[in-house]
């Protein structure tokens, strides 16, 4: 092929690529414009009226909270048990889901010598399904059978966690070094022992890092599921908001509690993750 031909080909490719990018941008713009138009039509309150009253509600809450003065803090204290319940939902769901994820991840990794190799495919499909199931549906279904309680939310979040973490964990597993595992196999170690000593020490820091990230996501999910009847801070919020005017101080207290705890967990989790990552790099 002559130099000229190569040049034309590159030009043509570049042109095509640019065309694709342009088409993509036009498509996104069209989706945005028509989508917002459609959304505005479907919405019960329009955008412009909404913008005008956007600050009304926060202002109302803040005003009511301000009026309570110093007794706002005891008010916040009153909701701490609800916050603890939400954190417990997230904590238990993360632990149960995370433990399940570890099992699924080991069975769903192609490089660990899981005995009939079909198991790997099946387990991967199971994880996909667990990940895809919306938490809301599982929670509502279980609330319907078990009644209003934190347990449905816990189970719903745990199922999603098992699927999501399982996939990430198995990706970590598949990048693990096989040499230590082979070394243990040559000593006559069982499969479980090989996983425990050959794989787990390698992957544990990554697991913990993903786990912390997931815990943070789960706190948010547990709070929001509370609103549909799963207890905790979300349930309290539904109660105070349902009362309409007058409970603004309580709503404000709940908002502040939730924001504070999410902030603390966010900072804590990124601190731990940074330490895990740098701990690995410095070796």
């Amino acid at each position: 092929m002559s130099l000229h031909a190569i040049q034309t080909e590159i030009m043509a490719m570049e042109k095509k690529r640019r065309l694709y990018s342009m088409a993509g941008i036009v498509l996104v713009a069209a989706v945005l414009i028509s989508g917002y138009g459609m959304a505005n039509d479907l919405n019960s309150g329009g955008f412009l009226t909404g913008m005008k009253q956007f600050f009304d509600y926060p202002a109302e809450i803040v005003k009511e909270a301000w009026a309570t003065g110093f007794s706002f803090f005891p008010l916040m204290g009153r909701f701490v048990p609800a916050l603890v319940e939400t954190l417990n939902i997230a904590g238990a769901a993360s632990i149960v889901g995370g433990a399940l994820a570890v099992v699924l991840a080991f069975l769903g990794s192609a490089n660990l010598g899981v005995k009939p190799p079909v198991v790997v495919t099946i387990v991967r499909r199971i994880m996909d399904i667990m990940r895809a199931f919306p938490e809301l549906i599982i929670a509502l279904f279980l609330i319907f059978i078990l009644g209003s309680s934190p347990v449905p939310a816990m189970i719903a979040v745990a199922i999603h966690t098992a699927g999501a973490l399982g996939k990430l964990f198995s990706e970590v597993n598949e990048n693990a070094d096989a040499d230590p595992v082979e070394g243990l196999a040559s000593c006559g170690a069982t499969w479980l022992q090989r996983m425990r000593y050959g794989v787990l020490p390698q992957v544990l820091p990554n697991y913990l890092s993903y786990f912390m990230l997931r815990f943070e996501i789960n706190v948010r999910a547990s709070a929001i599921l509370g609103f549909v009847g799963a207890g905790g801070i979300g349930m309290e919020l539904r109660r105070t908001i349902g009362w309409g005017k007058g409970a603004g101080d309580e709503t404000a207290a709940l908002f502040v509690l939730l924001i504070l705890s999410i902030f603390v967990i966010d900072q804590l989790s990124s601190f731990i993750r940074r330490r895990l990552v740098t701990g690995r790099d410095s070796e």
Partner: protein
Amino acid sequence: MKITDLTKTFGKITAVDAVSFSIDQPQMIGVIGPSGAGKSTLLRMINRLTDATRGSIRINDRDILQLSGREKRRWQRDCAMIFQQFNLVPRLNVVTNVLMGRLNGHSTLKSLFCIFGRHLVDEALAALDRLGIADQALQRAETLSGGQQQRVAIARALMQQPKMVLADEPIASLDPLSAEKVMTALREIRDRDNLTVLCNLHTLDTARTYCDRVIGMLQGCIVFDDVPSKLTPSVVRDIYGAEQELNESMTSTSISGPVFTPEPLRIRKAALA
């Protein structure tokens, strides 16, 4: 131990081709041969890391290749293996790595929680002491030098209380000084513990210095099996091809010889690959 007709094929490639030999008394055997000759595959089949396609390995009328499950793992413990890349667990400390040699027979629950009794720890320390690295017992394995890591691997092998030891190019990635320490340690297993040591090597003078018997392999077949003194230049040429005309001492591991340079070795390997 009697190996008969041992064969391994990977698709169209026959890595080990109807190999037969026997080991009647404890001895140190060096297996030599060009890259791709099937040395590693042979050792891995004996340790049952790789399943053989055909053949048998008999010890006291028991065919090792027919073992499975618990018995197979028990055999793997009896025939310890040492690897070129050490295959330690880098994140665990040295004692724990040595303790891994006793995972076989350790209960699942105890293994999960990393519980090892006093006598096991003492035994592991003794093994490390014998190899001169007891001081590093609490260091993480990955922080050790290559030579030290290989000695940890040998300590782990000793911990297995093996009936024989296999070593797959144990000194290929070590400097001459470490290599000598490792070879001496292996030789000592032969002399002191009176065990058979089957060791893949690619430096002839190492084989000559340390081994009682040398097996030469070429394209999966055994082409030489005798005492090292019978390893004449013409035999060597048969095994390695003409490239061995390169000064043999250049691939030497002995410190007294010319300065060790790994380059010629790599060229040879590459040329044959």
